[in-house]
């Protein structure tokens, strides 16, 4: 009995009898006949240099061996954030987002994939409560791309081409925004105050022009400080006829005011904190929110799912709102482009918010602030170590090691040897700050974790 008589488990019709039967049915002598249209010079002659197949058990052993070379943030104590953050993920989130119905679905219609439409409509609705706005989109790729689209929306609405962006944003996000907004829009950076990390209002005033389409800032800022002048920035933007776009960390909104209530016209952010594991950066997922104003709604490139009646009395139905906006309907004449983005993380964020509820969101926000302030206070009590900015912050803060005479790189290497992932080294992107690191502390950190960090730091410095 030859093993080759059996099909690969993933390829049922590779069973020889089936293959022969199918070839006979269509009148081909061999599989090669199917490829007869491909000229010989375009055919791959040699065998690909790819290792031979592994059985499932061999694969499990092999991949686990590779994965065991990774050390996780759970096996160590990690204070890394900067756009991807450790948060408590309720088991409910993983249960729902691993259901095969959601995992293996794609693009069904509202009557057969009703659950997909409903879950995403509910996610939109739940995030809408958090941001206190009436319109939220089906998720984009990530916060950076959500911000890019929000800015392009603003440019289309104002018919202007200049974007003013706070310098206090993630440098990678700036690269993405620049890529998504060039060549037709220009980006000008606005300084931040050295003392507080908040936006330099004088610099903003100086740079606003009659061609400013949008002013973009974040709250909390990339370097952690809370932007206390949100309303003033929004007023300045509006005074110049520009749109105010604010990026926000949604997990802060149980305790922090929504940007919608201090002048934001468009709010965007990342859903990853809402029940999505970090996945080495694969958990990022962007959202955009606006008021229910058709001028804004019609500029979204994204799918927007709405609730509607069906032909059956008493039945909820769901479907695409204003589908003709999209590139699916209009190609290059639609609004930017839409396609596969991060729907499953949107569904997950919905599950998270439904599970946490209003009290949970307030408690988690407050608990994060308490832990992060505690950590900053303990660290800053170490001789030579300082909190960089004198401003309130949410979960991230900058620690300045310049006075210790040691580099962040060396400190982080020493921490790593003790099983601690130190804060993100800022020296490459913000050399002007000196030897600074961005620390992230959330509800996943216990007092013991923080005290361990502080003790380790003392022993290193």
């Amino acid at each position, binding site marked *: 009995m030859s093993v080759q008589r059996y099909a690969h488990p*993933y390829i*049922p*019709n*590779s069973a020889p009898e089936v*293959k022969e039967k199918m070839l006979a*049915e269509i009148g081909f002598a061999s599989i090669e006949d*199917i*490829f*007869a*249209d491909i000229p010989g*010079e375009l*055919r791959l002659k040699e065998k690909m*240099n790819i290792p031979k197949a592994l059985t*499932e058990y061999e694969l499990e052993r092999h991949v686990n061996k*590779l*994965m065991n070379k990774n*050390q*996780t943030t759970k096996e160590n104590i990690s204070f890394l954030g900067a756009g991807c953050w450790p948060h408590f993920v309720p088991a409910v989130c*993983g249960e729902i987002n691993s259901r095969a*119905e*959601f995992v293996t*679905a794609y693009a*069904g219609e*509202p*009557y057969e994939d009703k*659950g997909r439409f409903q879950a995403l*409509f509910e996610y939109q*609705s*739940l995030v*809408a*409560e*958090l941001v206190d706005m009436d319109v939220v989109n089906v998720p984009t*790729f990530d916060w*950076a*791309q959500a911000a890019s689209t929000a800015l392009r929306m603003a440019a289309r609405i104002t018919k202007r081409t200049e974007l003013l962006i706070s310098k206090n944003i993630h440098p990678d996000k700036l690269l*993405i925004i620049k890529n998504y907004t060039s060549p037709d829009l220009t980006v000008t950076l606005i300084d931040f105050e050295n003392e507080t990390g908040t936006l330099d209002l004088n610099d903003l005033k100086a740079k606003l022009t009659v061609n400013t389409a949008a002013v973009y800032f974040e709250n909390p800022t990339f370097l952690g400080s809370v932007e206390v002048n949100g309303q003033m920035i929004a007023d300045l933007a509006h005074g110049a006829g520009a749109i105010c776009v604010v990026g926000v960390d949604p997990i802060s909104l149980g305790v922090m005011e929504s940007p919608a209530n201090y002048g934001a016209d468009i709010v965007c952010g990342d859903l990853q904190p809402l029940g999505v594991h970090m996945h*080495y*950066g694969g958990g*990022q997922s962007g959202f955009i929110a606006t008021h229910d104003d058709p001028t804004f709604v019609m500029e979204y490139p994204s799918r927007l*799912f709405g609730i509607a*009646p069906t*032909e*059956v009395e008493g*039945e*909820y139905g769901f479907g695409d709102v204003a589908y003709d906006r999209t590139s699916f309907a209009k*190609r290059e004449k639609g609004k*930017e*482009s839409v*396609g*596969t*983005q991060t*729907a499953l*993380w949107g569904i997950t964020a919905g599950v998270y918010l*439904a599970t946490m*509820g*209003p009290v949970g969101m307030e408690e988690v926000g407050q*608990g994060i602030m308490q832990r992060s302030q*505690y950590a900053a206070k303990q660290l800053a009590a170490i001789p030579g170590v300082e909190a960089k900015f004198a401003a*309130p912050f949410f979960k991230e803060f900058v620690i300045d090691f310049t006075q210790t005479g040691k580099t962040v790189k060396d400190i982080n290497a020493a921490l*790593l040897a003790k099983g601690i992932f130190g804060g993100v080294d800022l020296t490459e992107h913000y050399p002007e700050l000196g030897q600074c690191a961005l620390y992230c502390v959330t509800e996943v950190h216990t007092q013991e974790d923080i005290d361990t960090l502080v003790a380790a730091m003392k022993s290193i410095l």
Partner: protein
Amino acid sequence: MKTSEGTIDKMKRIPRDHKVRRFHQAKWDEPVIFELSQPGERGVEVPPVEPQIVETVGDCLSQLPDSLRRKKRPNLPEISQYRVIRHYSRISQEVLGSDFNVEIGQGTCTMKYSPKINERFVRSPKMAELHPLQDESTVQGMLEMTYQLDLYLREISGMDKFSFQPGSGTQALFTQASIVRKYHESRGEGEQRNEFITTHFSHPSQAATAAVKGFKIIYVPADENGYPDLEALKELVSERTAAFAVANPEDTGIYNSRIKEFTDVVHAAGGLCCYDQANANGLLGITRALEAGFDMCFFNLHKTFSVPHACGGPATGAIGVTAELAPFLPGPIVDFDGERYFYKRDLKNSIGKVRSFYGVPPAVLRSYAWVRALGADGLKEVAEIACLNNNYLYHKILQIRGASAPYIQGRRLEQVRYSWQQLKEDTGVTTYDVQRRMVDFAHHYWTSHHPYVVPEPFTLEPTESYSMAELDEYIAALTHISQEAYENPEIVKTAPHNSTGHRVLESVLDDPDQWCITWRAYLKKTAQE
């Protein structure tokens, strides 16, 4: 215990000779989640803060200026954990995922089997609990798999370097357009080369993303056989040509054997050639981007490489380029020095970035595992069987009354864009009617991308994942519906009958005064006087 009054004399075989599945989708009639709220309930407890922390820092909220302090709790529902689970489990049953139906009706999307072992890998803490800015020494396993997958994709495509940063096919198309622009800018021709040539069969995002990058979109028409018209292309190229982007085969499944002449024409005019390999499933180990003259290509890991579609992402459009274009890729890129894996960050002409960090690493892990489960021979077998399945399906569909496959009759590779034009002319039944009726037999069915170059279109892509019996089941359902259309069209036109939902009264979705994009908007707009 007797449960019914019915009796029989003798146990007999239960007749199972019906040709189409007697299906009914789950219908839970579940409320919208806000309607489940019961004040005082909660779904999970938040990790408590230690008393000593509170003692040290106080309530902290008072540190926020009043303008930034949330005044009112968000109006989220309050629901116990089990009820949340039941809600989402129920509505999940109202989704027709590809683990349930014979998902060959979503052509162009390669709805193949996503192996369960790979789902276990990505849900391991060894993947899920990694932070993208960890020290490279702590993620050597992840980097090794990324680098090795790059090597495998080079083998499959002939390209010299891959980036896994783009988060889908659409973002890969955007990345291609970004590279095209940057390449011409680097040669001082950025302003001049502003025309991007593609075809009507290309994915809508092809034209849409190139337009975002400031290009004027030019379409090469199809000739009578369904190929892009080479003579027309010759007329269209000029010193303004930035790039030509095309799939081969396109959604018709017809392989353009003169593709090298196309890329030669574009290169002679100074343009770049971009290969959309969303349709690569039928080509693994058969033919490559390099020999056909392309400068870059991309593979959708969520199509060809088995990553599940997840209701629409997260996903990956892995983009590969020639050595000349490698410095233009979005960074950083994983490299290997013989001892350790590391990130190469000095890409001198890099377009910057398109997605945060490195893209979607779980998709890379799944694809790596999938390639290792197949090996070189298995990958080629995937292509062969996918094409065999498609030609089998093609052969059978053409026997269905009212169905056709426009353009040249002969071989088709991975998929076919079919037409019900004849059915519509004969019976008035449209492709949308068939689409709604198919779900009554448990099948998902899709039309095609816009524009409908093929009238009354439907696009089927069987992949390698479904058995002959399953293909026969799908064919039987289409045959049955065709027969219904000729004999009793009303049953088709009034479908669906057995699905969760029914036809949505869509006009409200296009009216700003009536559309309700969130529950709160719905409550406001439908408030009773």
